[in-house]
């Protein structure tokens, strides 16, 4: 492995819009709200920024395609702005690229924005894509359900365990003013909700959400001069596996290789073990996904993540709090925004600004996206400046 990213990039400002059905906001509104919040948080302005990265999965008429999606809303002209798209890892990958531009010495201060407007679209926000014949009929829940059913079959897990992930994440999300689904749910409600794609009922699925989040990254010495409570990037790694796991006869469907590879690389950069992580924002697009994630990230051995959920180890007061923000499940999942929103939560947690869902004295926080499903994963490890 070449040069590590560790301690070479600081996060000096973060911002996030309310997540939800933002029928009255434009893509431009979201970008402005998230970016201005991050600028204010950092005590910086657009003129201080050398470059920017924007993460949007689904561009449409209002924005999300190319660098102009940031340039025009923010009047940020004449600077290098790159649009990133990498399935559900879009936001974290935009952040990772921003970090690399700092490490390379090209830039001093870089803006990252993830923004997504799903609710302007028909078809529950998600278009049908893919081959005209092969795999036709796949949906996001249906694709993850293939893995969930295999996992549940192999380890004897029932829907009741999956439901406990939803109960926990909604408990956290209820305590987050920016959450999309800001309510608690009971296990019974989750189990009795309408079926979407077996084994996932409605409350096993994250919502389709509008929202944006932003972060400002810079060289650590600049962060120190600003005198703000900043976080340091310890590791940021991306891994791509097959986008067609269902055609791979060697794939056991018991975990995602992309997460495993990205986590390994990120831990190596950070010089830590999974046990050093104090909290993690992981990609709980569906309840089961959180269970495989905590295994693939090394917090629990393969086949035992579900027991950790049963034992409450992943609650805010547990041994490894998972998704204290509420996760995609409760906070919502505007695809390109989610990864940057996770960075936002991690920084807020490291600063101790999260109120009732605050994890006790965290030093290391981790953000994780996986999309595809299993095709691409990005893992970012953050630590406090102290």
């Amino acid at each position, binding site marked *: 492995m070449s040069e590590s990213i560790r301690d070479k990039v600081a996060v000096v400002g973060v911002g996030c819009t309310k997540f939800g059905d933002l029928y009255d906001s434009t893509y431009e509104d979201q970008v402005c709200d998230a970016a201005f919040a991050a600028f204010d948080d950092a005590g910086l302005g657009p003129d201080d920024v050398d470059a920017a990265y924007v993460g949007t999965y689904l561009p449409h008429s209002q924005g999300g395609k190319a660098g102009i999606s940031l340039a025009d809303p923010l009047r940020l002209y004449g600077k290098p702005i790159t649009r990133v798209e990498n399935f559900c890892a879009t936001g974290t990958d935009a952040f990772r690229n921003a970090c690399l531009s700092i490490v390379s010495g090209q830039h001093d201060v870089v803006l990252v924005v993830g923004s997504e407007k799903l609710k302007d679209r028909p078809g529950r926000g998600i278009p*049908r894509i893919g081959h*005209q*014949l092969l795999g036709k*009929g*796949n949906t996001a*829940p249906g694709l993850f359900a293939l893995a969930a059913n295999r996992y549940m079959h192999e380890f004897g897990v029932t829907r009741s365990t999956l439901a406990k992930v939803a109960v926990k994440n909604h408990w956290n999300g209820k305590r987050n003013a920016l959450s999309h689904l800001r309510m608690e749910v009971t296990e019974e409600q989750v189990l009795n909700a309408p*079926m979407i794609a*077996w084994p996932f009922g409605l409350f096993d699925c994250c919502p389709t959400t509008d929202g944006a989040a932003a972060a400002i990254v810079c060289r650590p010495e600049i962060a120190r001069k600003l005198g703000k409570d900043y976080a340091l990037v310890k590791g940021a790694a991306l891994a791509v596996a097959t986008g067609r796991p269902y*055609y791979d*006869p060697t794939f056991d469907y018991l975990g995602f290789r992309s997460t495993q590879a990205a986590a390994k690389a990120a831990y190596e950069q950070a010089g830590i073990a999974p046990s050093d992580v104090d909290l993690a924002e992981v990609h709980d697009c569906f309840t089961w996904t959180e269970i495989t994630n905590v295994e693939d990230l090394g917090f629990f051995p393969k086949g035992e993540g579900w027991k950790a959920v049963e034992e409450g180890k992943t609650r805010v007061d547990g041994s490894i709090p998972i998704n204290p923000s509420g996760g995609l499940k409760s906070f919502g999942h505007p695809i390109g925004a989610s990864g940057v929103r996770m960075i936002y939560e991690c920084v807020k947690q490291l600063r101790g600004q999260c109120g009732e869902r605050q994890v006790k004295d965290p030093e290391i926080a981790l953000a994780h996206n996986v999309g595809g499903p299993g095709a691409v994963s990005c893992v970012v490890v953050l630590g406090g400046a102290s």
Partner: protein
Amino acid sequence: MVGISSIGVHVPRSRLDRALVGKAWGRKQPPGEKAVAHFDEDALTMAVSAVLRCVDDAQAPTIDGLFFASTSSPYREKQVASFVATACDLPREILTADFCGSVRAGVSALSAAIRAVQSGAAKRVVVAVADCRPAEPDGDLEGVLGDAAIAVLVDAQGRLAAFDGGAAVAEEFTFQWRTDQGGPVQSQDARFSATHAYLRDLPEVIGRVLNERGLGTEQVAALAVGHPDARTAQDLAKAVGVDPKTGLVPSLSGAIGVTGSPDPLLLLASALERAKPGDAIVVGAFGEGAEALLFAAGEAAGPGACRPALQAAIDDKLPLPTYEKYLKYRRILGQDDTPVEFVSNVAEHREMQQDTRLYGTRCSACGLVQYPQARVCLGCHARAGLEPAKLRKRGTIFTYTMDHLAANLDHPMGMAVVDLDGGGRVYVQTTDASPESIRIGAPVELTFRRLHAGGENYNYYWKARPA
């Protein structure tokens, strides 16, 4: 002797209890059920299913003719025989033709196949006959018409049945028709048509073919004749001089309905399952005239003549829970929920071997069979030596979901990851399945189905159904 050497049958799994039709319209229906093509089936897909049962993978490369017969082809313009041949991975060097126009088309195609082999124009011709004829809701034919397909292999051996002669007459008579405007089958008064055409033409051709062979009607072991209803078949037997109880092949109309062009061939299959070598069997069909073919049962006749056994095909069924489901599946009522897609005919052409003939690639370095076709091996990353590999159409479900979100005519829609026997893993929709039958470890077979109507055309691909 030129004749029939193999038979494959496809009866769609859905059954409509006629009592549900009676209940829907408040009028009496005869007892029994009719076989109903699933929403993703049509005459083309049913023909593919029948051919795959008639011709196994080892025989496929030896076939040099395929005739398709149906009154309900999904295409007015576009040859179905060549499509069926492609989907069944038959050779390109093959004689094909579509037969249509009346329910006599199945016997016409069989007759033509026999002449082709007799003449030496072809050696091994498959005749694929399928129908799913539309009936008017609350009309006289709604409880009557059923859907089915059969494929028979005609060759110089005639292991099941040897051809012994034929006769035909043709004369315009209006009994049942559909104009170029489409719509359900229209019918002239059934009794009048029976007395003045069906019972005139069929006895004439049956008498001629028996006379030519010097056979008396008492020597006919089985009369396998397509019929508009079971009673008219009985009348025909009497008119010909065959005992309806012993010499007439029992009608399938009670169990699966009147199936149209495949009907006489299904009755022939039924007769051959019970025949002794040497039995004389008369096959006949009516429609703007009539044609009769005489066969002598061969050494292979008897149980096992047909794949699967006809009764097993009839017994393999899933009852439709309501009449309304039938209306939806046959697209008589409601919108088609199958999503309309952009379709590239260029991509379709490029991927014909992969998508329609169902070939993956096999790595000559590590042996891994993989689908879809790839340049670089998934297993050993070899970047050369990947050869086309025909996939088997049987396998086991590795994992699955039942998806209520997917846009589809039926919910929930099963999606399955299937490990195929002999290698290769595919990801396909499931069909013909009760939700509980789709589970990890379940054996399935791949079946060719209509997938969606993108590009203002029907688009076909493989699905998995419980084996």
